[in-house]
């Protein structure tokens, strides 16, 4: 295939879903389900196929591919120097991984969504937003400069907002959407300031040039890269739901389940990971920030693991587990193990999409019941979904052989001897893995084992589209580990090689890491034995009453972060807003209005409507004019 065709395919990647989005929005409800789903899924399929063709063109000889579409605008720093901001796409190993995940998983989730949302009255709007999300996400990962990346970054934020609040008639959904938007905006603001600083310091925003000039201009430990990396980290933290800004993700589960799978598990929330990986040149110059990244990741993964243990909503368990898995990715990036983090990003996208979609299928079968304590005994009644969910959980727990195992072990293996991580973080990661396996088992026991605790008859979906996408995801989750080698090779050019110095590592590290999930399983087998044993004829079992203790309630609400922010930020802000309702500056501006109002009154009073007065005014004015002319004439005569 010639070079130009490849370039054209790369350039057109985001345009298939864009066209589909425009058509769906333009024609809206006039399209039947068949046309709308063919359009949106077809556009995704085209995108997927062309992205795989393009990725195949990447080789060790030509590891990058760029395509320039048009000049967007020019940013000038001073009179003389300016930087051209282009609409250009840049494909290397890292963005290749991202576009294959975005389009591949996106296609499967679109297929699922077409079946899942079939009966919704706003089906076309839903698919349009999903397509728009893919457009923004592709722009984000393909951008060759940070301004374009920021466009995609805000675009996915917008789509996330629109899709969380998709069922906008319920107040809770709208509040969740608003919360997600505002909380991520905090991070985005930090990121924008980081971009301004970058541009001020380096005078350009092209990602490749940035890394080069940063490494020539600064040395490790300089002040500017420290602040820039910290600010960029702020953006990543907001988007990826890490520790200070994590509160929006569990609430975001208010959206339809395909949205949770696509945006809040597989793609958008990993944008922060992508950002840090992409800007590794800057981050490597600021080892302290790398250390912060690692600690943020570790504390998030522990916090989310603890919170996941106490949830009663199946989707919220998965949301917290997403948070903790992204914590692993952050930890890995912070430790300098970039390719391991990106690999975990990919496998996580596979199995978390599978988990979410299977959960969606189960929720659909249970008439939108999401409470784990109202499930139970699904193993016999939904064997297909159970098997798929079990596959997803095995990957999540990283049992040997599954895709999660390869990626998570790769991360954990590099922690101990990393300069920016260390043994303490290794212990955190191991404890996190233990927590992961415990909450996974709890989820499995509650939902699938034990006795039946739901009232309505099951109504499993028989859609082939739905099953096909689930099976494809399950296969990817199982065999995801085989991509490890290709990924490492393609990422070799993107990331600096970190020389592993495993000399002073204790020899028991790997065996402990492998054994940890099994310890968790054995522990929960006995600890949660009430959940898995079916007690027939004992319907008012105490275990399933779900009367949580104060501690459990505290964990269920995400360890009190919501309340903390409410007291620290939301309440004072609302109080100030109320206090300052008659804003001083507002009053200053209102002076203008007041002045205009006075003038209006004055001139209004002259409009009496009495025609004789008007005539008199005209006469008077004419007389005055004539008098003036006469005086002027006389003075001319005199001189």
């Amino acid at each position, binding site marked *: 295939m010639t070079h130009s065709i490849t370039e054209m395919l790369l350039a057109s990647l985001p345009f298939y879903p864009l066209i589909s989005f425009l058509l769906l929005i333009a024609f809206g409800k006039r399209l039947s389900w068949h046309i709308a789903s063919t359009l949106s899924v077809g556009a995704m399929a085209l995108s997927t196929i062309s992205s795989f063709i393009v990725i195949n063109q990447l080789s060790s000889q030509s590891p990058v591919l760029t395509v320039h579409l048009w000049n967007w605008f020019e940013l000038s720093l001073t009179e003389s120097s300016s930087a051209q901001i282009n609409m250009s796409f840049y494909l290397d190993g890292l963005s290749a991984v991202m576009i294959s995940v975005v389009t591949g998983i996106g296609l499967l989730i679109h297929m699922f969504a077409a079946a899942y949302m079939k009966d919704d009255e706003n089906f076309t709007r839903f698919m349009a937003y999903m397509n728009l999300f893919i457009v923004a996400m592709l722009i984000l990962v393909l951008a060759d400069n940070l301004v374009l990346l920021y466009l995609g970054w805000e675009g996915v934020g917008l789509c996330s907002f629109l899709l969380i609040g998709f069922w906008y008639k319920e107040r809770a959904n709208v509040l969740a959407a608003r919360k997600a938007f505002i909380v991520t905006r905090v991070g985005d603001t930090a990121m924008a300031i980081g971009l301004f600083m970058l541009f001020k310091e380096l005078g350009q925003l092209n990602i490749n040039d940035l890394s080069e000039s940063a490494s020539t201009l600064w040395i490790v430990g300089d002040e500017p890269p420290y602040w820039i990396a910290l600010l960029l980290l702020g953006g990543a933290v907001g988007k990826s739901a890490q520790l200070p800004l994590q509160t929006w993700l569990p609430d975001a589960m208010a959206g339809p389940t395909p949205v949770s799978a696509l945006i809040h598990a597989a793609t958008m929330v990993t944008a922060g990971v992508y950002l840090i990986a992409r800007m590794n040149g800057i981050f490597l110059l600021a080892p302290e920030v790398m250390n912060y990244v690692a600690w943020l990741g570790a504390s998030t993964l522990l916090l989310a693991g603890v919170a996941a243990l106490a949830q009663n909503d199946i989707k919220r368990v998965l949301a917290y587990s997403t948070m903790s898995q992204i914590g692993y990715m952050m930890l890995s990036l912070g430790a300098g193990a970039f390719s391991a983090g990106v690999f975990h990003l990919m496998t996580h996208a596979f199995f978390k999409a599978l988990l979410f979609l299977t959960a969606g299928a189960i929720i659909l079968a249970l008439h939108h019941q999401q409470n784990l304590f109202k499930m139970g005994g699904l193993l016999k009644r939904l064997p297909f979904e159970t098997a798929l969910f079990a596959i997803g959980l095995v990957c999540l727990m990283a049992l040997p052989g599954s895709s999660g195992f390869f990626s998570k072990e790769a991360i954990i293996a590099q922690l101990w001897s990393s300069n920016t991580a260390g043994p303490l973080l290794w212990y955190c990661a191991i404890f996190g893995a233990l927590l992961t396996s415990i909450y996974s088992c709890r989820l499995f026991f509650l939902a699938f084992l034990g006795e039946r605790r739901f009232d309505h008859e099951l109504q499993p979906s028989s859609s082939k589209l739905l099953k096909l996408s689930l099976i494809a995801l399950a296969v990817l989750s199982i065999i995801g580990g085989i991509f490890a080698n290709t990924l490492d090779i393609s990422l070799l050019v993107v990331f600096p090689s970190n020389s592993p110095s495993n000399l002073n590592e204790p020899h028991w590290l790997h065996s402990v890491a492998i054994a940890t999930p099994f310890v968790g399983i054995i522990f929960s087998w006995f600890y949660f034995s009430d959940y898995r044993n079916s007690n027939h004829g004992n319907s008012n079992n105490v275990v399933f009453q779900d009367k949580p203790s104060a501690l459990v309630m505290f964990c269920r609400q995400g360890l009190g972060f919501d309340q903390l922010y409410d007291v620290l930020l939301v309440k004072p802000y609302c109080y100030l807003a109320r206090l300052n309702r008659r804003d001083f500056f507002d009053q200053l501006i209102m002076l203008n209005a007041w002045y205009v109002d006075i003038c209006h009154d004055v*001139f*209004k*009073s*002259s*409009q*009496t*409507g*009495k*025609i*004789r007065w008007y*005539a*008199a005014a005209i*006469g008077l004015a004419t007389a005055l004019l004539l008098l003036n002319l006469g005086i002027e004439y006389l003075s001319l005569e005199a001189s």
Partner: protein
Amino acid sequence: MSEIPLSHVLILASILFTIGFVGIIARKNTLFILMSLEVMLNAVGVAFIGAGSAWQQADGQVMFVLVLTLAAAEVAVGLALLIQMQRRFKSLDIDLLSKLKG
């Protein structure tokens, strides 16, 4: 026949014009206002004729014919309006027509 100087004609025209104008301002009755308007138009006509004869040009008389036709048309419209006004308000008081008050 002795020549009448232009200044005399203009003074007469000004006096007529002022009389008409004062009539417009002072009278309340719309009919009288219309009549005052006619007086003003004729004042202008006198000025035109005087100027035309002073410079021996036909333009002055042409303009007067124009003013005359205009005045006739204006009177036709004005009287029609007066009839309407009498019907609606049962009065010809011009101050009643003040709906355009700001």
